[in-house]
Each structure stands twice: as structure tokens, then as C-alpha cells.
């Protein structure tokens, strides 16, 4: 048996190596060129930390009493086999369009694991198998871990369910709404204070646990499906914080570092996502936006004439244009039309048309999601243009082809007084001619009419993105 005096420093050094790999890995995700390498570095650090922990647990003298090492190892091996198998299967088989809900699911189980560590720790304090009374550090961290971990567990499951369509994506108002949410929050705070002043009540812990689990549900249900990316990012940050709290409970530095790192990154990312939609995080969490009930601040668009355009006319416009800018949106992602759009673009390019893609920061379901989808369809990376780069080019574009994008193209955002006011938009209306492919005149998340559709330069092509693009491609070929 190797002395604990040697083992302990070794495992701590391994954890430090892991923590450094996490930080450098995240830093390398700055640019597309090094991002993959950064993720692999991070994964390598994770492997080092986990393997070192396993070796440490295997070789260290057993100091606890009453535990069964064999059963402990069976639990670890079986748990890793089950969790690893499920995770690997889900991650390898998921379609790229369904990826946000999977990330949310992984986030849920991470938060669940962090909460379980605290629950287990609390049960041990209570059963007396831990002899020394817990210090303030463990006590405060334990309660915070239970609260945050439970909220993120149920909240992420609801978010994932909404994106999968198992739970209606539209905001669901809990009866009593914010009063219930406020009441639940109050119960958690009172319960936490009760435990922190030195009471060790199992009943109080279970009340806090139950209320936190319910709170996660009531917090997420009233939020519309369109805002889910922001919510998932926020919950991701919560999970990081819960893991850091678990680190305080277990006095484990690598959990504290990794958890705090994710807590901070998730918070920044949440703010960036909300900013791109011109919403505040608070505004989103209060919910109800996108229900279609919001009063539209747009006048003039109502009842104005919409010009419809046929597939053949649209095909002729595209085929004889010099510059075409494709504006893909949520509708394209839902219809999984990324391959269809690439085929059309290639056909046009073979006829000498210059084709570019205008990517709004929140196109698709998450920032960067559209790039992932188009990259999957082998769209050359240089053709994908960020909003700020492409906006000046719309003036020179002969045709702007908008596919299933709505609010991000609404010129009403340039004026005050509309729900989308101030939101950065793509200057699609500056193009010489506009084709909007859309299934119906349905409204976007903001629940308002899009003035672009009534613009005299705009022709509406009512079709599902995939079918419509296939029809366009066939029509261009036939020319």
C-alpha cells in the first residue's frame, strides 16, 4: 500500500493538469481552426482527472468505516458503463437539428449528479456516519448544491422536452403564475436559512429538495420555445455553479475550478444570446413573450397586399442573377433543408451566379447553430457571412432568398415602438429583389407582422423549405 502522503499530492497534481486543460481547451475554442483541438484537449484533461481519481481510490488506505470497497467499485464500473453507453449512443446518433435538446439533457443529468452528491452528504450528516459536525462551509454549500442542482435538473428536462416537442413549445402559464414561483422561492430561502443557522433537519432538506424540483418546472414552463437556447445556456451556468458547490461539500479543488469556470462561461454566453435578440435575461425568465398575445406595435402592415411568386418565376430570377444572398432561418432548420439549399446554391454557381449565405447571430435555434447545419451539408465555410460582413452587400445583391427566417429580417426593428425594435437585423430589404420562402403568413416569435413581406420588391413563395428548394432546383435545371 502506497502512503497517502505520496498519493494525495499525485492525485492533486493530476487534477491540476485537468483544470489547466479545461482552461486552455476553452481558450482554443476561440477560432474554428483550433476549436476541435481545444475540445480534445479538454477531453484529455477530463480523462487524466478521472483516471487519476480511480487510481487514487484504488491504492489509498481505506479510512472510512463500514463501507464496502467491492460494492463501491461495482457501483462505479456499472454506473460508468450505463452512463457512458447511453451518452455515447445518444451523442453519435442524434441528428444535428436535434442537438440543442440533447445538450440540455446532458446538462440535466450533470445537475442531477451534483444535487445527488449534496443529498448523499446531507443524509450522512443526519445518519451520524460522519462523526464531526459539519462546518459552515459544507452546510451552506450542501444546501446551495441541492437547490441549484435540482432546479437545473428539472428545468433542463422541461427545456429539452419543449425543444423535442414532447411539451408544447408555447409558453404555458402556471395558474397563479409568478405568485406561485415567488412562493416557492420564499420556501427555499426560509428552508435554507433554517438549515444554515445550525439545524440538521432531514424533513427540511426534503422540503427544499421537493420545492426546488418543482421550481425548476414552473420556472421553465412559461418560457416560449424560441427562448429555450437562452434558458439552456442559463441552466448550463447553474449546473457549473452546482458542481462548484459540490466541490465545496467534498473539499475537492478540481470540482470547484471546473464548476466555477462553466458557471462564468455560461453566464457570459447567456448574456450574449439575450443581447443578440435584444432581450434582457430577466425579461426572458419572466416569460410569456412569443405567445402571440403581445400587442403588435406595427401599423400599416396589417391588411397590406402581399405579392405571391411562383416557383418558375423565382427560378428565373435566381438563375439570371449575378449576386444571390441566401438568408436561412429557423424554418430551414426545422425542415432539415440544409442539403436542399446547398444543392440549389451549387446549381446556381455552376451557372456563374455568385452565392453567399447571410447568417444572423441567432439564426436557427442557437447562436452558431445555422453554421453547424450548413457545414454538415458541406456548404463551403467562406460562403457563410456574418451579419456585419454581409449587410453592406445586400445593396449589390440582385436577389435575396429568405428561407424560413422572419423576425431577423423585419425592417420594423430599425424604428422604435415595435417589440423587435433595436434588434440587429439583416438588411434584406436593401436587395434589388426579394424572394421569401415560407410555409404561411404565420408570425415569428415576436408575434408581429413582418413589413418585409408587404414590400413591393418582395415575392412570397409559400412552401415548406425542403420541398420548395427541391422544386426551385428542378425549375432552374429545366431552364
Amino acid at each position, binding site marked *: 500500500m502506497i502512503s497517502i502522503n505520496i498519493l494525495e499530492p499525485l492525485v492533486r497534481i493530476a487534477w491540476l493538469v485537468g483544470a489547466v486543460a479545461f482552461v486552455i481547451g*476553452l*481558450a482554443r*475554442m*476561440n*477560432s*474554428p*481552426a483550433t*476549436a*476541435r483541438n*481545444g*475540445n480534445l484537449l*479538454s477531453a484529455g484533461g*477530463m480523462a487524466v*482527472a*478521472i483516471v487519476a*481519481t480511480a487510481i487514487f*481510490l484504488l491504492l489509498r488506505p481505506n479510512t472510512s468505516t463500514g*463501507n464496502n470497497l467491492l460494492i*463501491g467499485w461495482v*457501483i*462505479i464500473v*456499472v*454506473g460508468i458503463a*450505463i*452512463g*457512458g453507453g*447511453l*451518452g455515447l449512443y445518444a*451523442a453519435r446518433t442524434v441528428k444535428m437539428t436535434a442537438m440543442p435538446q440533447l*445538450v440540455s439533457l*446532458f*446538462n440535466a443529468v*450533470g445537475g442531477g449528479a451534483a444535487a*445527488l452528491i449534496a443529498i*448523499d452528504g446531507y*443524509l450522512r450528516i443526519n445518519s451520524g456516519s460522519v462523526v464531526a459536525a459539519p462546518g459552515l*462551509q459544507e452546510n451552506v454549500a450542501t444546501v446551495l448544491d441541492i437547490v441549484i442542482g435540482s432546479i437545473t435538473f428539472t428545468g433542463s428536462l422541461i427545456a429539452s422536452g419543449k425543444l423535442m416537442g414532447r411539451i408544447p413549445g408555447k409558453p404555458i402559464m402556471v395558474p397563479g403564475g409568478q405568485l406561485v414561483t415567488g412562493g416557492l422561492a420564499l420556501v427555499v430561502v426560509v428552508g435554507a436559512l433554517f438549515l444554515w443557522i445550525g439545524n440538521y433537519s432531514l424533513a427540511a432538506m426534503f422540503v427544499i429538495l421537493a420545492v426546488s424540483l418543482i421550481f425548476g418546472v414552473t420556472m421553465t414552463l412559461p418560457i416560449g420555445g424560441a427562448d429555450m437556447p437562452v434558458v439552456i*445556456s442559463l441552466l*448550463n451556468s447553474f449546473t*457549473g455553479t452546482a458542481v*462548484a458547490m459540490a466541490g*465545496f461539500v467534498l*473539499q475537492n*479543488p*478540481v470540482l*470547484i475550478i*471546473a464548476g466555477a*469556470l*462553466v458557471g462564468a*462561461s455560461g453566464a*457570459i*454566453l447567456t448574456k450574449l444570446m439575450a443581447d443578440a435578440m435584444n432581450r434582457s435575461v430577466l425579461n426572458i425568465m419572466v416569460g410569456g413573450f412569443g405567445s402571440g398575445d403581445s400587442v403588435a406595435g406595427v401599423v400599416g402592415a396589417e391588411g397590406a397586399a402581399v405579392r405571391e411568386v411562383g416557383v418558375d418565376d423565382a427560378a428565373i430570377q435566381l438563375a439570371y442573377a449575378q449576386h444571390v444572398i441566401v438568408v436561412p432561418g429557423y424554418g430551414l432548420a426545422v425542415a432539415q433543408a440544409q442539403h436542399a439549399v446547398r444543392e440549389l446554391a*451549387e446549381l446556381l454557381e455552376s451557372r456563374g451566379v455568385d452565392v453567399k449565405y447571410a447568417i444572423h*447571430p441567432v439564426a436557427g435555434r*442557437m447562436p*452558431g*447553430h445555422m453554421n453547424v447545419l450548413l*457545414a454538415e451539408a*458541406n*456548404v463551403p465555410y467562406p460562403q457563410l457571412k456574418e451579419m456585419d460582413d454581409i449587410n453592406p452587400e445586400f445593396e449589390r445583391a440582385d436577389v435575396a432568398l429568405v428561407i424560413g427566417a422572419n423576425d431577423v429580417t423585419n425592417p420594423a426593428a430599425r424604428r422604435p415602438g415595435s417589440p423587435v425594435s433595436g434588434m440587429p437585423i439583416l438588411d434584406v430589404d436593401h436587395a434589388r429583389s426579394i424572394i421569401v420562402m415560407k410555409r404561411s403568413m404565420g408570425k415569428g416569435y415576436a408575434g408581429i407582422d413582418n413589413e418585409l413581406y408587404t414590400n413591393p420588391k418582395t415575392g412570397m413563395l409559400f412552401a415548406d423549405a425542403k420541398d420548395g428548394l427541391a422544386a426551385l432546383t428542378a425549375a432552374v435545371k429545366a431552364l
Partner: protein
Amino acid sequence: MSPAEVSDFLTNFTIFTLAILCGFAVISKVPATLHTPLMSGANSIHGIVLVGSMFIAIEATDPLSQLLSLIAVAFATMNVVGGYVVTDRMLQMFRRKPAAAMKADQGEG
């Protein structure tokens, strides 16, 4: 709290605070196109909770603790393995070179 506990807590709290600042500094430089992979990558990192789950599994003394730690280990492993694999799948697409993509497409057609 004993002086030793205060000292321990402050050490941990120092690590916690610096790690938060580190997270802010690193993340704020990432371009928008990489936000989804980044979120997924950060999501995998909190799978480090597996380390804590392994400790409670080994130290479990009663059936309830054993059950809780089994679920914790399974959950945490799912977070780690699934998170890194799905992030890698996303980033693999970004890395594909335009020239190689063109070639693959011509092959298809």
C-alpha cells in the same frame, strides 16, 4: 468554525473566485459562430462531477447511499462522454476544408 476550517474555506473560496474570473476572461473572446459548440463544450466540462460521484460511491455505507451514488456516477458519465462526443461532432463539421468539401460533392454528383 475552527481556524483550520476558516483557512480551508478561504483557500477554496480563492480558487473559486479566480476560476470565475478565468472563465469570464476566456469566454468573452469567442466569436458568435462558435457559441453552440462552446456551450456544449462547457457543458461537458461540468461532467467533472464524476470525480465527486466516484468518491461518494466508494465511501457509501448503506444501500440508500449506494443507490444515490450509482445514479450520480451514471448521470455524470453520461454528461462527460455524451458532451465531448457531441461537441466533437459539431466541431468536425467546422474544420472541413472547402477544397475537400468540393471534392466530396463532385463525387456525390
